[in-house]
């Protein structure tokens, strides 16, 4: 298939999916499996393949017995896609270090995909939660933040992606969210304000986004070393205190007002 500017440099299977839509793509892949399984396996192992294509084909990979022909990390991603689609209730997830590279690949190549449906979104949210929380991966945080904000913009459910981001427990996630306070997109700004509404300046200056962002950034910088994740999120209440300022700021900022005096003491009354 001739490449164009949109498809140049991407894996053959991704190109087929973009050109034919998910259903057409699956049909073509099934035909290929019937004719040339080795070629189908080579395409699945392509270094440039993106996770959404693997997700669409996961049933066909099983049906045509291709799992054994997949490379190690690709096979793990395929197993994770299956397991994360419908995790058994009441059976705690068993994390393994070998999951991490596959989960990173899933997030890196799949977080921006939209329109693959609720099950795909759920798999991505669970992958994000595993990486952020169980594997302590911090490099994935920008992709998880992008995913959460993209979901909200498209009107789909963003709560679990937001939860995964904060479950990293890393104040870096506050920076990623605060960057959206001055977004050109009103939905982004509103979502960022809501997620950070425990930080006093995030509840003020809403009509001056750039100023609000600067003030929130300063608050984060000032308190960064003392911020402690509380584990509370939007399920708990309208204004969950996601991070608390645990103690007084370091000695070099003692001339300022103590950080705990600035931290809002919770929502409501």
């Amino acid at each position, binding site marked *: 298939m001739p490449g164009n500017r949109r498809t140049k440099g991407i894996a053959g299977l991704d190109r087929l999916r973009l050109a034919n839509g998910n259903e057409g793509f699956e049909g073509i892949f099934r035909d290929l499996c019937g004719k040339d399984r080795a070629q189908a396996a080579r395409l699945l192992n392509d270094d440039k393949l993106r996770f959404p294509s693997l997700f669409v084909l996961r049933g066909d990979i099983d049906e045509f017995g291709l799992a054994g022909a997949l490379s190690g990390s690709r096979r793990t991603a395929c197993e994770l896609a299956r397991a*994360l689609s419908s*995790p058994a*209730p*009441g059976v*705690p*997830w*068993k*994390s393994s270090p070998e999951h991490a590279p596959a989960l990173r690949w899933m997030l890196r190549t799949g977080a921006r995909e939209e329109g693959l449906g*609720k099950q795909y*979104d*759920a798999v991505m*949210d*669970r992958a994000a*939660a*595993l990486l952020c*929380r*169980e594997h302590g991966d911090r490099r994935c945080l920008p992709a998880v933040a992008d995913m959460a904000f993209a979901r*909200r913009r*498209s*009107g*789909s*459910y*963003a*709560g*679990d992606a937001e*939860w*995964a981001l904060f*479950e990293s427990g890393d104040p870096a996630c506050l920076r990623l969210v605060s960057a959206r306070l001055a977004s050109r997109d009103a939905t982004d700004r509103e979502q960022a304000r*809501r997620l950070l509404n425990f930080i006093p300046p995030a509840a003020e200056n809403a009509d001056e986004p750039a100023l609000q962002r600067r003030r929130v950034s300063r608050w984060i910088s000032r308190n960064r070393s003392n911020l402690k994740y509380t*584990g*509370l*999120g*939007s*399920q*708990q*209440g*309208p*204004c969950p205190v996601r991070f608390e300022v645990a103690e007084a700021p370091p000695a070099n900022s003692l001339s300022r007002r103590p950080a705990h005096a600035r931290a809002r*003491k*919770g*929502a*409501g*009354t």
Partner: protein
Amino acid sequence: MIAIGGSRIDALPDFPGFEPDALQRGILDTMRKSAETYAYETAGELAFELRLRKALVESARALARSGMAFEVFRDARANPEYWEVTGEGGFRLKPGARPSEAVRDIFRSGRLYGTECATAMVIVYYRAMLDVMPDEQFDQLFGGIYLFDWERLDSNLMLGDHRRIADELPGDARYFVNPDVDPLHPEWQGENAFYLGGGQYYGHGIGVAGAERILRALNGGRREGATREAYLLPGGKRQDYRRLAAAGSRAAILATAPAGIASGMQIG
């Protein structure tokens, strides 16, 4: 203790036209014995709080009986006659539907509905408000009703989130938090529950149960190798009963005013 009009009261106040029942007398008893001061301008304000707290308890029990299922937001469902289920799993009132009827339908046709525990709490608040105000006033106040966790809460519900409460009173909304939740089941990160009195709570998905059973259910949804147990947060959510009572009085006056004035009424 209870203070009315700036004076501490030791005996049960006289509520003209209102006789507290056992649940409400229990609330009064807890308030009187408390180190916390429960202050009101008038006995009527206190009576309003007692009525609304009872309505919250009854609404919570009614929702528990309704057959509404527990569903994660992605699988949320509602009666399409009244509600549109949005892409994020919220329930948006359909154009032309009466808010009061739509809220009652959740309790009447519970099996057509499914959502998470936070939305269930919000539903209980709306249903309780219906018990203390006429339908017309409810429809006017909550015309743009959108049910979706705590995020889209109508400010007219006047809900406050207190980091600590001195006493647990029937009608208080509490939160059981599960810090070591299984990462694949964030719906078990906690349980919102109304305190019903007598050591009982209603939490959607678990039902009417004691704290121990709720904690056991949450602990059953923890990650592998969990070291932290689920626990009850010391805070709680309470409506601003005094402001609601004052707004209710204003509404009663406005109800007799010309229609144009009454329709412009806002609480809050």
